[in-house]
Each structure stands twice: as structure tokens, then as C-alpha cells.
């Protein structure tokens, strides 16, 4: 494109109009007397007459009612009509995306300008901030802290008006060979690190052996492909390896693939296959069942799992016609460096996994869980971003991507712990729905390899290998190219086109598809062609700019791309659909080669050739050591990391100790309201919501789970929930059981069918090169196996993110606590019976189901009061024989319509659960703690009120139904008791027999919970 010159346009709020973006920046800085004005800047390259500039400004860039505009040429000083008449600012700062960083707004302006003027223009966007009341230097630091990230933005101290845009130059082919055959072990290590391959010495040796066998050196593109394919991110080599575990066992029952040795050690052959996946296969009857705690060997095999572990997401039956699928991904490393782009592309990638499942699913819901350092941690190590900024930016990223995709984000959680300072965790989940006959895709020899969606660029190179590495204080500089900004609309139109092609009148136009995630084309084509081979013409891929090498095109993880296997005869029909949806499509090559190799070409010349067998089976599997060290783990799990503990002081002298603790718990960030996050998400788009994330009067209460009705005109619902029990991380076995129990409780409380729960595992772990962390991982995996079998809740998909630790410039390693997120979904047979957690009216009876103990280890009571600073208290453990039965019995009572409200008892114990039910419903409660089931033990009031024992539910039941509900629990021998009554008084009253312990107004409870989360 020939460029005349660059015209600079500025658009800002007109005189007397509000400027919310400027005001918001000033607000977030919070300096008195500071005023900020925001202007949008558009740099437009092309040949533009003054009339064209005026039209562009008036008809496209500025709002005629609320905004003014002006434009300038670099020379000639021709300016548009409206100029500002305001006071000269004290400082001007501009923020522009760095060259090569995705600029979705610029793309849209280019397309719209073409439609408006008929001209091809090149556009870049930016933001200008005018400051009053601060110096230039302070203004710059404000922008750098609040509105820019050096990884993706350039910050200027004056209005930016370049002479020309930087452009790449055309790539001249030269094929680089890497002389690996002669390297010694040290040189192999150096190569692995310097080329960002992140492969172990053994793996480098395996590559060396292969190329010695072939009698040649690998070409760069081949080495990169192997590194991507063998990355932890793609192949899960740690979870699939053979592990030698020593230390305290978890139970004495047998587990498949486990072999006890005389030394007392246990050899585990492929941890993932022998635990998480084994549970599913035992439940499905595809491998023999092992006996274990709570395992019913006579139960019939589960027949509703349609596709597990094999595809981009796990698929289960929903009704006769539909299947639903679920995937949860982490995007931790990118989010540590660029939280907005990292989170957005995290949810974007997870959505693509859903679209790329089977022959394509329609995304119907998203979930998100974040783990970050506490907001009051202001001093962070060099190379880390302040936790409040991380949280607000990841929320913005999920919001902007999810809302634009039109997918409701409706379930999630946030967990705070200072050890996440260098490695915040960003989990993004997505659920899809598809016809039952579209759950499996295929690839046939001769199918055209079609790429659709976004263009390929240099952004996102080495994401797969980078995500498998440990972060250090220099990573932000080294890996900025792995960070990306997404463009949701590109993904949305690709989704629309794919669904139109799937549901085409002549039948599905393609055999199979997958998304381009980690590893880009190399993984997508490599996986789809893993048995047939493929011939790929890399020069045919549409690129964002000139100069990309074949290797870059092959491994780029640029967003919003899919690969389809399309029979030749359907190409034209597919092209018509893509055109109509404004989706770019290209024919990259063909699946199937005579020797099943993957052959890469550039304008016909072979630039790479890979043996599919070596690529997928050549990775060496060393034996990994796992050594359980309970004392070390307990020590590690000290709450709040390194912070000095402050003894608990009631904030309000009007309150007694228990009242103050209740308020402090409600205000604890893990428990407090997440409304500020939830409200930014369009959690109701698609119009399917039945139970929303906030429920009760004024939508002021935290729902246990979300329910949607995904099929129009059907009364069948789908409940979605999660479980996270990081407080119990000092024993990941106990933590894993608790997370699964919590996820199931959450689902049951909204009316889900507990016999149809499918779950997902997402491990985020510190480095497993440390045998102690490896042992922690084994224990968590055992929990998954044991609990999935006892609850008969199969895992259908999972993912792991290892190496979540940060090395500071002083060489201190900060490890995250072992974190296991359990996500789950299950049908609600009749949405009319869906249940919410808010007390419905006064005069009902309150029934507590489940036993309470005085095991306060890992509880929020211990955290808030400092009781467990040494991590020494005993932790409650799920009783696998009783927990599943409890879930089923509670579910039957809800399905029968006997329960007016139900709430899971988790963080903060029954005191917090009761408080939430009360203020959510605007209904008071009077509860006698002495009546709680304790297995006959006498417990202190604090234990009764605040213990976080699992498998407990609080139910509100009409007085007239109490007798039959109690009989129902009695018949199943589940401990339960009527512990109180809902009242007309606007108060929560806790007593122990005749002794009043606490009396708190609903207003005070609500305010503690609301302000704690603000």
C-alpha cells in the first residue's frame, strides 16, 4: 500500500460533556487536585484530502453530540475545525501500542474507512492524557502505573506524530540448520536455554540421537516443532511420567498403575493415567474397578460420558439431542507479564477449545477463577506487577473478551495469598453445547488443511515453551513477544462461520477441526495429522505484516485461528460462508503424505520434514522422584506467606469477639462480595440464566453455583460450579478431597442431579523438579482418584500449569501454594425446582446437614484470628463413605420441593453461611449452636460457629415439612438437626443454649460483606 503521509486525529469530550475515562484515571490515582482528560488518537496513513479528513472525523471517529475533534498533518499545519479552548495542561502523556502488537480498533477503523471513503488506509490508535495538577514526570509515572504496560505500549511525553509507520521487509528464504549432532551435554543445555526450547538434557539427547540416526542436522523449524510438541504445556510430561513416591501413603487401598515396593516406596506408571483418568475409566467400566473408600463396586457403569481427555474439551450427554462440553485453561505466565492481554487471550483460547471440540460446539457459558496476592501488598519484587492492578486488569481482560463474544461469564472465585505475587493464577473456563451427532471429528487423507480466522503474526511466539518455564525478574523483557492482545470480534465471526458450516443444509462441511492454541499451526496440524502426516505450504498463510520466516509462521501462537480438515468438494461452500461472515480463509495444504511425515514447504521448497512417530512418541520419560515431607509442607503453608501477624482486634468496640470475627470473616477478600467483578461481566447474554451469580433481594447474595437453561423451550437446566480449598494446601490430599466436595456441594445446592456430575482438574503447581512438590502433586492426584470414584463424578478434562514460582533479583524463590481448581457441571432436571441460597421468609426452620468438629486447621477463622500461624492445627478431611450419600440425600430433598433455600457451608463456617443467607434474603435468623450435630462431642462455640468441616449444607424448610425432611435424612442415617428458625427481626442471632453469643443486624452483615469486596 502506498502511503502519502500520516494524518493525526484527536477526539475528545466536548465542552461541558463528561469524560469518564479521564475521570476514572484521576479517581484511580486518588491525588487531590488532579484532573485528567482523555482523548482518542488515530494516526491515519494514506492520501487524504481535507474533505476526506473532515468526513472521517465527522462520520466515523467522533460523536456529533458529545465529542469534538481535530486533525493535523505533520507539515502544512492544516487542522480541522474544532480546536479546544481549554486551559493548557501541565503535562501530556500519550500511550500507543508497540509496533506488531494487535490493535483491534485500528483494524476496525481501516475496514470502516474503506467502506466510507473507498480508500485503503493504514491506521494506528493511541490515547492522549492531559493532566492538570501534576508534573510531566509524575504524569508519566501515573500512566505507566495505571494505563500502560511497557511490554505492549510505547509511552510518549508529547503528542506522537510519526513520519511513517514501521514496516517489515520481505523474507528471503534461507534454511538454517542447527548442528546438534556434535554438541556435548553442556552445549545441549546452552542450546536449549538460548533458543528458548526449555527441553531437558535427556530430551536434547533424544533429539541428538534421532538426527544422528537420520544422518543430518535438524533444521531450525524442526527443532522448534519438537520443542513445542514436547513442552510441558502440550504434552504434560510431568503428570504422565513414571514417579517413585516415598513417604506417608493416603489410605491402604489399591490404585491402578501403582506398584508398591519392598522399600515402602510406590512406583506410579503415568500419574495422570493412573489417577485422574483411571477414575473415569473405572466409572465408565472400560477398566476393572478397584475397591476403595466409598466405592460402590455394584453400581452400573456410567454411560453419559461421550468424549473424555481425548479432545479439546470433555463431552457429556445433556439430553437426548444435545451434548455439553467443558474445558478450563490456565493462562498464568502471560497474565503475570501483561494481565489484560493474558487474561483476554486466556478466555479466548479456552473458548476456541470449545468451538474446536468434536465437529464444533457453541459456547454457552464461561467461568473464571483468579489467585492473586492480597491487595494491601504494596511492595512487590522487581519484575512483578502490583496485585490490585493485576486483578483489575485480568477482570478487564475477561470482561472485554467474554462480553464481546456474547458468552455469559457466570461463575468464578478469587483467592488471595501473597505467594501469588510473582505468579498470579488466571483460570478461564468455557462450556459449549452441540448436537449429539457432532461430538467426534475426524481427518481423512486428501482433506484440505484450511486455516480460518485471524492472521498470523510474530506475536505469541514461544508461548508454549515459555508457559513451561519458571519466571524471573527479567522475563518481562525476554518474553514480551509471547504476550498478546486478542481481538474478540475476529473470534466471534470465526465462531459464527464455523457453526454455519457445521449446520450447513448439505451436512457438516468439514470432517474435523481444532483450534490453534499453544504451538500454533505446528500443534494444530501436527495433532490432526498425527497418523496421516500433512503437507503444509507456509507461504500461503495470511500474515499480519511482511517479513515472517517460515518458522515464525509455523510456531506463532497468534490468536483467533482454527484449522479445519475439509473435503475438496466442500471448499467452495465453505468459502461462501466465510465471505458472508467476513472471515479470512486459506488453504494451507493437504492431510496425508506417503510416509506419514509432516512436510513443510515455502513456495514449493521443502523447509522442514518431521517424522510424526518421533514427534509424538520420541519424548523420553525419566523416572521422577517424589518425596513427601509433611513438616516442610506445613511450614510452607503458613498463612499469608512472609507477613508478620497482627493479633485480632475487633474493629468496632460495640461488638463482642464473636460478632467482630463474623464481620471480619465476611470482609475477608476470599469471602467478601465479588459484585464489582460480576457486574462488569455480561452474565446474562444469550438469555439463558436461571440462577445468577448474585441472588436474593437486590441481588445481594453470593450464589453457590450458576444455572442456565441452554436449550430453548426445554425445562432442563445446567448447573456450573467450582471448588477451591487452597487453605488446606499443607496436605494436597486433604485439599483435593475438599475441593471436589465443595464443587459438588455447590452444584447440589442449586438443584443439580448429583448422579450426573462431571468434573475437571486444573493443577497449578510450583516446580516439580523439587521432589517435595512432586509428592504434593501425587497426593492431590490421589485425592482426585479417590473422590471421583466415591462421588461417581468422573473427570472429563484437565490441565496443568507447573513451574509457578518466581525468582527475585535477590535470588529468593517464591513458590505458589499448590493450587487445585475443581470445576464441575451437572444437569438440573427441572429448572422450576432450582434453588437459591437466600432465606425466603420468616418462620421457616433451619436444618444443618453434616457433622461439625473442632478441626480448625486451614480455616478462615484461623486465618483471621491468627490461630494457625504455625500451620499446626488439625485439618478436617472429607469422609468419602458419607459425603456422596449426603449429597444425594440433600439433592433428593431439593428435587422433591421441600427446600426453600440451600447453602453450602464453606469458608467461614456456618456463621458466615447463615449470615449470607440472612442478608441475601433480608430475613433474620435465630440459631442455637448447641443443637448442631457433632458426633456426640462437646465443642467450643468458636469451633461450632467457624469450623469449615466439609459435606455440610444449610437448608431452609417450611415448618410443615420439617418432620418429613428429618425423616428423610434419618432413613439415610445422615447426621442433621434443626438448629434454628428464620425470624421477622432484621438480625442474625447466634446462641449456645440459653447463652446469647452474637446478635448482628442484617445491615451490618451486608455492609461487612459488601465493603470487604470493594
Amino acid at each position, binding site marked *: 500500500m502506498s502511503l502519502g503521509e500520516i494524518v493525526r486525529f484527536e477526539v475528545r469530550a466536548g465542552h461541558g460533556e463528561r469524560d469518564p475515562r479521564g475521570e476514572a484515571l484521576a479517581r484511580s490515582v486518588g491525588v487531590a487536585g488532579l484532573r485528567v482528560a482523555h482523548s482518542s488518537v488515530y494516526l491515519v496513513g494514506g492520501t487524504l484530502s481535507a474533505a476526506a479528513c473532515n468526513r472521517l472525523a465527522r462520520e466515523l471517529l467522533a460523536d456529533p453530540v*458529545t465529542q469534538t475533534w481535530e486533525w493535523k498533518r505533520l507539515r502544512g499545519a492544516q487542522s480541522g475545525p474544532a480546536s479546544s479552548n481549554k486551559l493548557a495542561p501541565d503535562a501530556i502523556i500519550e500511550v500507543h501500542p508497540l509496533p506488531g502488537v494487535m490493535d*483491534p480498533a485500528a*483494524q476496525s477503523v481501516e475496514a*470502516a474507512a474503506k467502506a466510507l471513503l473507498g480508500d485503503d488506509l493504514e491506521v494506528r490508535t493511541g490515547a492522549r492524557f492531559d493532566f492538570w495538577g501534576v508534573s510531566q514526570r509524575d504524569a508519566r509515572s501515573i500512566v505507566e502505573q495505571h494505563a500502560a504496560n511497557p511490554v505492549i505500549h510505547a509511552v510518549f511525553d508529547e503528542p506522537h506524530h510519526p513520519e511513517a509507520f514501521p514496516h517489515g521487509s520481505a523474507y528471503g528464504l534461507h534454511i538454517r540448520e542447527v548442528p546438534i549432532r556434535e554438541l556435548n551435554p553442556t552445549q545441549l543445555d546452552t542450546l536449549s536455554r538460548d533458543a528458548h526450547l526449555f527441553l531437558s538434557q535427556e530430551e536434547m539427547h533424544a533429539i541428538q540421537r534421532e538426527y544422528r540416526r537420520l544422518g543430518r542436522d535438524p533444521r531450525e523449524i524442526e527443532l522448534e516443532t519438537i520443542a513445542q510438541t514436547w513442552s510441558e504445556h502440550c504434552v504434560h510430561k510431568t503428570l504422565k511420567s513414571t514417579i517413585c513416591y516415598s513417604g506417608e501413603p493416603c489410605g491402604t487401598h489399591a490404585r491402578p498403575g501403582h506398584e508398591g515396593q519392598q522399600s515402602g516406596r510406590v512406583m506410579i506408571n503415568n500419574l495422570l493415567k493412573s489417577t485422574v483418568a483411571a477414575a473415569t475409566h473405572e466409572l465408565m467400566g472400560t477398566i476393572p474397578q478397584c475397591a476403595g473408600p466409598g466405592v460402590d463396586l455394584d453400581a452400573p457403569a456410567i454411560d453419559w460420558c461421550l468424549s473424555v481427555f481425548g479432545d479439546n474439551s470433555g463431552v457429556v450427554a445433556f439430553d437426548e439431542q444435545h451434548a455439553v462440553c467443558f474445558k478450563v485453561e490456565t493462562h498464568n505466565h502471560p497474565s503475570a507479564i501483561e494481565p489484560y492481554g493474558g487474561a483476554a487471550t486466556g478466555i479466548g483460547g479456552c473458548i476456541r477449545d470449545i468451538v474446536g471440540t468434536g465437529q464444533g460446539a457453541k459456547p454457552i457459558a464461561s467461568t473464571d477463577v483468579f489467585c492473586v496476592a492480597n491487595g494491601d501488598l504494596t511492595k512487590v519484587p522487581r519484575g512483578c506487577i502490583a496485585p490490585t492492578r493485576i486483578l483489575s486488569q485480568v477482570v478487564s481482560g475477561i470482561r472485554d473478551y467474554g462480553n464481546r463474544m456474547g458468552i455469559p461469564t457466570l461463575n468464578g472465585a478469587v483467592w488471595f495469598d501473597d505467594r501469588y505475587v510473582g505468579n498470579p493464577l488466571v483460570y478461564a473456563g468455557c462450556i459449549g453445547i452441540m448436537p449429539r451427532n457432532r461430538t467426534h471429528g475426524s481427518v481423512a487423507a486428501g482433506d484440505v488443511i484450511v486455516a480460518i480466522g485471524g492472521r498470523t503474526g510474530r506475536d505469541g511466539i514461544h508461548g508454549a515453551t515459555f508457559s513451561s518455564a519458571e519466571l524471573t525478574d527479567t522475563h518481562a523483557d525476554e518474553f514480551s513477544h509471547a504476550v498478546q492482545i486478542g481481538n474478540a470480534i475476529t473470534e466471534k465471526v470465526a465462531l459464527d462461520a464455523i457453526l454455519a458450516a457445521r449446520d450447513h443444509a448439505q451436512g457438516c462441511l468439514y470432517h474435523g477441526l481444532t483450534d490453534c492454541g499453544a504451538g500454533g499451526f505446528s500443534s494444530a496440524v501436527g495433532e490432526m495429522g498425527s497418523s496421516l502426516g500433512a503437507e503444509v505450504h507456509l507461504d500461503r498463510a495470511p500474515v499480519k505484516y511482511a517479513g515472517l520466516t517460515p518458522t515464525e509462521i509455523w510456531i506463532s501462537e497468534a490468536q483467533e485461528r482454527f484449522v479445519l480438515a475439509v473435503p475438496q468438494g466442500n471448499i467452495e461452500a465453505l468459502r461462501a460462508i466465510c465471505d458472508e461472515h467476513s472471515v479470512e480463509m486459506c488453504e494451507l495444504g493437504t492431510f496425508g503424505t506417503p510416509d506419514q511425515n509432516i512436510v513443510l514447504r515455502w513456495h514449493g521448497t521443502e523447509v522442514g520434514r518431521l517424522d510424526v512417530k518421533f514427534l509424538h512418541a520420541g519424548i523420553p520419560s525419566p523416572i521422577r522422584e517424589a518425596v513427601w515431607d509433611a513438616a516442610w509442607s506445613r511450614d510452607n503453608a503458613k498463612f499469608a506467606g512472609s507477613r508478620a501477624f497482627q493479633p485480632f482486634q475487633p474493629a468496632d468496640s460495640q461488638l463482642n469477639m464473636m460478632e467482630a470475627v463474623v464481620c471480619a470473616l465476611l470482609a475477608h477478600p476470599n469471602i467478601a462480595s465479588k459484585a464489582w467483578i460480576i*457486574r462488569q461481566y455480561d452474565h446474562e447474554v444469550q*438469555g439463558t440464566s436461571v440462577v445468577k451469580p448474585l441472588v436474593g433481594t437486590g441481588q445481594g447474595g453470593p450464589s453457590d453455583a450458576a444455572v442456565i437453561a441452554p436449550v430453548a423451550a426445554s425445562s432442563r437446566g445446567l448447573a456450573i460450579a467450582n471448588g477451591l480449598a487452597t487453605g488446606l494446601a499443607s496436605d494436597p490430599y486433604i485439599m483435593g478431597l475438599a475441593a471436589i466436595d465443595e464443587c459438588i456441594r455447590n452444584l447440589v445446592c442449586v438443584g443439580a442431579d448429583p448422579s450426573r456430575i462431571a468434573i475437571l482438574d486444573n493443577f497449578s503447581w510450583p516446580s516439580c523438579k523439587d521432589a517435595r512438590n512432586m509428592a504434593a502433586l501425587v497426593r492431590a492426584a490421589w485425592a482426585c482418584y479417590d473422590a471421583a470414584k466415591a462421588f461417581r463424578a468422573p473427570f472429563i478434562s484437565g490441565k496443568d500449569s507447573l513451574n509457578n514460582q518466581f525468582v527475585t533479583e535477590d535470588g529468593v524463590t517464591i513458590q505458589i501454594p499448590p493450587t487445585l481448581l475443581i470445576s464441575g457441571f451437572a444437569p438440573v432436571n427441572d429448572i422450576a425446582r432450582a434453588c437459591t441460597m437466600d432465606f425466603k421468609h420468616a418462620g421457616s426452620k433451619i436444618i444443618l446437614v453434616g457433622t461439625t468438629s473442632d478441626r480448625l486447621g486451614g480455616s478462615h477463622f484461623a486465618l483471621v484470628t491468627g490461630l494457625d500461624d504455625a500451620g499446626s492445627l488439625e485439618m478436617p478431611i472429607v469422609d468419602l463413605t458419607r459425603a456422596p450419600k449426603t449429597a444425594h440425600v440433600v439433592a433428593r430433598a431439593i428435587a422433591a420441593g421441600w427446600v426453600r433455600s440451600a447453602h453450602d457451608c464453606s469458608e467461614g463456617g456456618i456463621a458466615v453461611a447463615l449470615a449470607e443467607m440472612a442478608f441475601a434474603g433480608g430475613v433474620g435468623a435465630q440459631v442455637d449452636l448447641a443443637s448442631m450435630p457433632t458426633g456426640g462431642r462437646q465443642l467450643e462455640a468458636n469451633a461450632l460457629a467457624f469450623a469449615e468441616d466439609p459435606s455440610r449444607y444449610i437448608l431452609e424448610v417450611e415448618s410443615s415439612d420439617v418432620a418429613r425432611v428429618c425423616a428423610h435424612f434419618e432413613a439415610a442415617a445422615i447426621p442433621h438437626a434443626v438448629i434454628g428458625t428464620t425470624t421477622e427481626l432484621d438480625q442474625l442471632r447466634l446462641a449456645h443454649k440459653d447463652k446469647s453469643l452474637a446478635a448482628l443486624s442484617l445491615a451490618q452483615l451486608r455492609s461487612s460483606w459488601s465493603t470487604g469486596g470493594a
Partner: protein
Amino acid sequence: MTLTGPKALVITAPGINCDSELCAAFHAAGAQPQSELLQRLMRTPSLVDQFDLIGLPGGFSFGDDIAAGRIMGALMARSMYPALREAVLRGVPMICPCNGFQIAVQAGLLPGPSGGGEQWPELAAPASVALAPNASARFADCWTKIEVPRDTVCIWTKDLRIDAPDDVLPSAHGEGRFVASPHVVERLEAGGQIAIRYASSDNFNGSTGAIAGVCDPSGLIFGLMPHPERYTRWTQHPQWTRIDAGVRTHDPLGLRIFRNAVRWVRGDRRGAHFEELGASAL
């Protein structure tokens, strides 16, 4: 008695994402919805002529880059304005929730000709009202109480009874703050063109006069920031589990808005393209 309902056109485009619930709402109100891509309609604007109702759904058309609805509004002003103006002149009601409202304003369809009645200009006029970023500068998803001015000419909201506590509507947007000069607001008020307001306690985005939606002088084109299409079933209400089943027997407010327009089309024969077989009485 077989009844073939009026045909409703639902316009989709890159980034539009509330088309399925808009179709569902038309369907629930007795119309036959059909989605069409903007690309196709821009090529053949006369496709619009076959329809009795039109819906411009919510979403993030073209990413809402630059400003919400700006690009799609500019495209529609160029290529579809005449066909849509014709549709209004022949009596076709059009609903534009959320992004649809933002687009309709940018496309010169709302608040319509200032001369009133049927004096639509040949070319799309520049907008005289704006939907600016929320005062909070944040996207917000929430339910609000609403009010319908008694004197509104909007055929979608006219004569709606809004008296029950469950008469609320959901909104979900980042740029919904209604802005207009006092004199434009005065004109709209005088012409009965204020179709719907947030209850004054629920004006969460800071709109001028708590205005949530307006109509053109004919009352046929209705743009609003709330999403009535997301409240056509009781289970969509945020507190439905608190509302007695005995109360949950009438139509939810959102559905009543759509039924209003379908009823209007059935009564008004100007734009009737549908057939009613064996309908003894309207």
C-alpha cells in the same frame, strides 16, 4: 385454528451477539423470526420489504471500536437507511435494544425526524442524541425498575401496566448514558418520544432525565438500553425463586413489550405480509 404470525427480521453482523434471545422473544410473542446477515442485506436491501417487524439486536457490532455502534451505524446509514425508512413508512415496528439502540442512533434512525410524522430526510441525518460511556466508565450488568411515561407514542411500551415489583428489566452495557441537549429532550418529551425511563433511584449509568429508551415520532422505532428480550420467561427474573408461583402467572414485562408490537402489527394492516388462517377475531 392455525395462525401464521407476522415475520420478524433480526439483523446480525460481526460482533452482534444477542440475536438468539431476540429471535426467542419474537417467537414467544407469536412472531416468526428470521436472522439475516448485514452483508446480505446491504447487497439486497429490498429483502427488508418481506418483513412485518424488525429487530436490531445487542452485542458489540464490529467490536464497538471507536464507539459503540459507530461503525455499524455508519454502514447502515450508507446502505440500509432508505430501506428501513420505507419500512417505517409502511408501518413496520422496529426494536433496537442495547447495541441496536446505539446503532440506530448512529444510523440516523433515532430519534428520527424533528419535524415529526413522516418527514424523514432522504439521507440519514447526523445524530442529535448520544449514548456515551457510563458515568462509572465501567461496563455494568444489572436489573432496574423502569417507568413508562403515560403520554408516550411508542407502540412497544404504550399502555404497559408497570405496577408490580417484578416489573423490572435487565441492562448490560458500558456505553449507555443517554445524552442530549435540554432542547432536544424537551422536543422528545413534547412529542411523546420518551418511551421508557429508569426509575430515578435506578439510573445507574447517569442518563439525562433517566432516559432509558426513545422512539421516533411515529412510535414505531424503539431504541432502549435495557434488554426486554432477556426477560420473557420467569426463570430469567433475578429473584424468581422468591416470587410466589401464584404471582408468576402473568407474562413477564419483556414479553409484554414484544406482544404489544405483535398485537399492533396484527391490528394495523398497513404492513401486514402475514396470513392469518381461520382467525375469526383479532
